[in-house]
């Protein structure tokens, strides 16, 4: 089947303004959107660029806007769209565009880094594993699905309005360590996100949860952080 792809193009060396370029290609209904982009690049225009690697929704490289919706190009198939012969492909919003569909991700990873995304536990290391119940491990399971694709943060209306807001992805990482039974810094972690730029910035608009390609209940996890902050304050 013939399909038209209208793709956002921007080359900082040449273009003053972004432009849209149309490509007509043959597609199968079972093709991934990424397959279509690869086909365009291989057969028609090798100058078109985007990030992609694993091609099955685990490395988190290829989040973009497909027909107005944020998604992974390797996880969405042609048949998933009603307008299967007409696609509009754009870069993730929120971030600066470097070239075509490639955006500047540094601000995203700086926020990730801010939440101290590593286990803090200065107790002497046991000879074997630290014990953790299956239930405790399950508490953080939703956050372990995160592939750092930035879909949630780039969709978040608060992140768009407040550049200082940590955003859903970084808060989800905070959640992952706050609720890890092996971590000993829960108190200071909660204090760190107890602000309007932290957990309270979230106005439960659910956009993050809607777009997450891994089905993570991001908004709920942030809600759990808020409750934990309140509980900690009551105890004080």
């Amino acid at each position: 089947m013939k399909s038209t792809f209208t793709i956002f193009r921007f080359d900082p060396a040449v273009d003053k303004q972004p432009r849209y370029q149309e490509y007509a290609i043959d597609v199968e209904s079972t093709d991934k959107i990424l397959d279509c982009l690869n086909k365009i690049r291989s057969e028609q225009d090798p100058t078109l660029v985007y990030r992609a690697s694993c091609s099955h929704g685990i490395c988190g490289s290829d989040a973009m806007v497909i027909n107005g919706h944020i998604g992974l190009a390797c996880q969405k198939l042609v048949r998933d769209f009603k307008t299967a012969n007409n696609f509009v492909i754009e870069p993730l919003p929120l971030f600066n565009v470097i070239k075509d569909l490639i955006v500047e991700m540094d601000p995203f990873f700086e926020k990730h880094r801010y939440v101290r995304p590593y286990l803090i536990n200065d107790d002497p290391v046991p000879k074997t594993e630290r014990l953790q119940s299956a239930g405790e491990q399950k508490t953080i399971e939703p956050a372990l699905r995160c592939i750092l694709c930035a879909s949630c943060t780039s969709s978040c209306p608060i992140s768009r309005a407040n550049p200082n807001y940590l955003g859903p992805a970084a808060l989800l990482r905070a959640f992952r360590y706050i609720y890890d039974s092996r971590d000993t810094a829960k108190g200071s972690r909660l204090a760190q996100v107890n602000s309007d730029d932290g957990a309270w910035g979230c106005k439960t608009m659910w956009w993050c949860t809607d777009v997450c390609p891994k089905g993570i209940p991001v908004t709920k996890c942030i809600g759990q952080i808020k409750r934990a902050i309140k509980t900690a304050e009551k105890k004080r």
Partner: protein
Amino acid sequence: MEHQYDVIIVGAGLAGLRAAIELGEDSRVAVLSKVFATRSHSGAAQGGIGAALGNEEEDNWEWHMFDTVKGSDYLGDQDAIEIMAKDAPHIVYELEHMGVPFNRTPDGKIAQRAFGGHTSEFGKAAVKRACFAADRTGRVILDTLWEKCLQRGIQFFNEFHMLSLIVKEGRCSGLTAYEMATGKIHIFNSKAVLLATGGAGKIFKTTSNALASTGDGLAIAYRAGAPLEDMEFIQFHPTGIYKLGILISEAARGEGGILRNSEGERFMERYAPTIKDLAPRDMVSRCILKEVREGKGIDGKDYVHLDLTHLGEEVIGEKLVEIIEFAKTYVGVDARKDPIPVQPTCHYMMGGIATDADARVIIDAENTPFPGLYAAGECACVSVHGANRLGCNSLLDTLVFGRRAGIEMRKFIHSTGYPKVPSDLEDLEAAKIRFLMEKNGSENLGSLQQELQSVMMENVSVFRHKETLAEALESVRDLKLRYQNVGVTDKGSCFNRNLLDTLELGHMLDLAEVMLLGALHREESRGAHSREDFPDRNDQQFLAHTMVRFDQQKGPQLFTKPVTITRFEPKERKY
């Protein structure tokens, strides 16, 4: 632009990051990667990491060692395999201490499950040895190690593409790299370089590998004079999703999944009566294709069914989450109710840059080190996997030898100064890039790439034969000639993927040639290398590693290296 570090690590997957963590406290170390660190292909590993913890049932490292030796069809070096099996529990506990969120047993220990070829008491029955975090084990280990590196303040050069190794008087003194965002050439001067660049599955049409798996590190090391070892051994994982190659973890069978032919028969019972569907990957892949040849593929086509319908919600919902989603997303199959269509997919290279058990790259059959050059992970051949790797031994390999690389490099960098780097390197590399960019080629990059992938898929996959191998070698050599006429269309300097694709194809063509030379030379069937014209293993002639070194004048030179046998004498391999 010039940089100086004690150690440059190329590749930000598990081997590279584990080495970085080992060195990070007291050495100047930088990690260079052509993709952002967390996009590395280690993250696609699903099923688990093998270690004889004995958390679920009795186990010990010696059984693990034996299984690995037998799985390797006796081509693995037993001294190195012993190191790996012995180190394994410590490596896994260390990961747990760093924060890796493993699934847990009812008493709070790391949970383990069965995997192909892993047995108790030297082959008596399947044993639960794979430590796992659902079916995203690689991803959570990758995240944890990367985050540990952030904590340690390790310097990353993300989206930098290695161009060449700097070798002077036989010593590696750093590398040159291309910054993708700007097109600038960078010179990295270092006392040691660790190559941890992963595999090269993209040489084949159907693969579970990422777009980035183009074997750059191997090809660049090969061009710099390092021999490649056992490159003819390429693992085809039995259960890739039909046509797509997306991996359905062996964990699916470890948790009780069953392969069935068009008659609904559990055919693996016939081929491997003891461990059935949990036979090693080379065997299962061959068995699937035998069924297909006998007309027992589903609907007469070249795939079979992986049946998980009997596993129950607890297993599917908690341990096989990702693969259930893959089946739903990509082939519209609800694996709770219907079987998944599967066929073998190119998955892993047992071969690689020849190293010793301390990750030192070696240049000959006497294990003479290549000073300053190290390799670990899939791009290296220690060899712990021999002719066939067992499932859940690859993550283990990356971590055991990544760590050992770190330890060895620390010793090395404290014993030596910075080697000198020629002053005109930046100009030289820039001239090479300019040459490629200015060339107006008559050949299309995309079609050359596809031709290579088809030739290799058709002739160098599960079954091989002299005639078709020779034809394939001719085709690859022809493609190499045509490659000289490929032009780069994109003339820009910002994220010029076209230029990088061109470089990558050059790497893959070199490697394809080496794979074919090895496959033609090895006139026997061993592990993943199955010759229809030589169906038996021939220990008398071929119980040896294949080494291919690139000579600037004479081209590829093949020689062999003896296999180290310590505890287990080669025997017939039955399961």
